[in-house]
């Protein structure tokens, strides 16, 4: 079937007169997993409730397979073609089996069919051995698997996931994330997945929508959203830590000279002279050298002098803040930090290639 499964048209939601969501248009295509990312309070859950027909917009229309959704009395049959999973497992008191079969029983499905699909669903999520366990005795991870199985056995046309991993500890989360990825890859179920976690969005999303302060600022394939954010807000949310305002002085053979805080940078981007821009640098694009110790590779056209202000361990990396006039953030492996003999207060040369920065035009 072609055409979007779900769509929003000129949708606005206000609570007590305060705007919480404004989406001029959004389309969700069949078989696609759309990851909606954004900070807490951005309106992601509200968006999901709209798409799940669990809430109505204050203004505008929600379309399901091209048709505007009917008044609330006739919503049930449409809602029964979807299924939702939330951050909390929200299981009913009873056994695992009773929970997984709940949605099917609500639809008055045939008994044999219910038991077949429940058995299948439990085995897909690896909870077959828990069938007779009471839900009160489950761990957080087990409970969330039950919640997912309960939605998946319905074989919904749209699966709605609202931060389903947010309350789980990292190993449990990674296990479940991997399983879900396999399941979604196999079923090609249309899925809308809300998360504040960039890694989860990258792992599951075919497309990523960035939502900030009630607006969807960018929808694209994950690589493009993360590499080429359209605005400063999006850039900050997808992990660009260094964002420097500057202006384009000249352009020659695709190479622009951009003046940023007294430094002259060379940037490979289709720009025109005189434009005001934001130069975005991801920490992993920046290389550090102790001042004067090494010559930087020649392909790194940009070299700035600065002083290390502080370093913060994050996993196997150090997140290093360097004062070059403006502040830059680089990530350095612990090993190179030690090999290069870096320390807070050290004089360094910061270098990055002309192709490294992503440039956003300023209005």
């Amino acid at each position: 079937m072609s055409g979007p499964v779900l769509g929003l048209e000129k949708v606005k939601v206000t609570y007590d007169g305060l705007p919480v969501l404004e989406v001029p248009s959004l389309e969700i295509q069949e078989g696609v997993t759309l990851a909606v990312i954004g900070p807490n309070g951005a309106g992601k859950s509200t968006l999901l409730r709209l798409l799940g027909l669990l809430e109505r917009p204050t203004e505008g229309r929600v379309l399901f397979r091209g048709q505007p959704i009917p008044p609330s009395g006739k919503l049930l049959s449409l809602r029964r073609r979807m299924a939702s999973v939330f951050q909390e497992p929200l299981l009913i008191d009873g056994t695992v089996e009773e929970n997984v079969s709940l949605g099917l029983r609500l639809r008055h499905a045939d008994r044999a069919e219910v038991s077949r699909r429940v058995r299948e669903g439990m085995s897909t999520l690896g909870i077959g051995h828990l069938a007779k366990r009471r839900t009160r005795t489950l761990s957080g991870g087990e409970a969330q698997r039950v919640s997912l199985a309960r939605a998946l056995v319905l074989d919904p046309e749209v699966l709605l996931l609202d931060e389903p991993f947010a309350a789980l500890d990292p190993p449990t989360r990674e296990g479940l994330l991997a399983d879900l990825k396999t399941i979604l890859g196999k079923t090609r179920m249309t899925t809308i997945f809300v998360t504040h976690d960039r890694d989860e969005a990258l792992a599951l999303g075919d497309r990523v929508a960035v939502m900030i302060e009630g607006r969807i600022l960018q929808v694209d394939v994950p690589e493009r959203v993360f590499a080429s954010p359209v605005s400063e807000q999006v850039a900050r949310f997808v992990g660009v830590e260094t964002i420097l305002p500057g202006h384009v002085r000249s352009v020659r053979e695709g190479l622009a000279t951009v003046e940023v805080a007294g430094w002259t940078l060379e940037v490979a981007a289709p720009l025109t002279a005189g434009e005001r821009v934001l130069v975005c640098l991801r920490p992993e694009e920046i290389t550090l050298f102790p001042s004067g110790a090494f010559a930087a590779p020649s392909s790194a056209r940009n070299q700035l002098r600065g002083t290390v202000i502080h370093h913060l361990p994050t996993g196997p990396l150090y997140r290093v803040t360097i004062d070059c006039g403006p502040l830059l953030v680089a990530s350095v492996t612990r090993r190179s930090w030690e090999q290069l003999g870096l320390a807070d207060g050290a004089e360094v040369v910061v270098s990055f290639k002309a192709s490294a920065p992503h440039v956003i035009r300023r209005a």
Partner: protein
Amino acid sequence: MELIWQGTKQALLLLVHGDAEVLRITLLSLQVSGTATLLSLLVGIPLGTFLALARFPGRSIAVSLVNTGMGLPPVVVGLFVGIFLWRSGPLGFLELLYTPTAIVIAQFVIAAPIVTGLTVAAVQQLNPRLRVQLLGLGASRLQVVWLLLKEARLPLLAAVMAGFGGVISEIGASMMVGGNIYRQTRVLTTATVLETSKGNFDMAIALSLLLLLLTFAVNWTLTWVQQRGRRP
């Protein structure tokens, strides 16, 4: 002390011999308070659920009124139900005053706010997101309400116990609208008062023991049902 001891001995004899009048009084108490409780459940559970889930202007006032009603003094209820049922009252034509039905009505008025108020509390202690989750699994409105009540069944049984406990033990309303008429509207509490005032302490103690036994039996059954669900 001697009085209690003698009275208890006499009472046990009365009970063992199965005094016909005592039996009649006990059965009437059970029947009247049971019916009143049942009616209060029929009204209180739907009303309480509605108040717990619906959002409308004046809702918090309605809930406060119900909560106030949970402490209605039975004697006041008896007075007002009595006024309605008097021959000259608005419902006088029904000729219900001094009948078991009149006691049922008064006890219903006492129990209904208790059941309603505790139902509101029982449903509101559930996770508010459970309702959205159930809708998100394709439950109809009615199915949502049914599932929520099932989830709240333990505190709801407490509501039943509180409702029944409130009416089986009250005396003011039974006296005022029932009149404590021999072989017609005499219940355990009114009979106990009467026997005490006559100085028949053995009979009074026998009736009290029965009242305690009856309350215990009913609550024990309900507790058993309630706690059965607690086992993992």
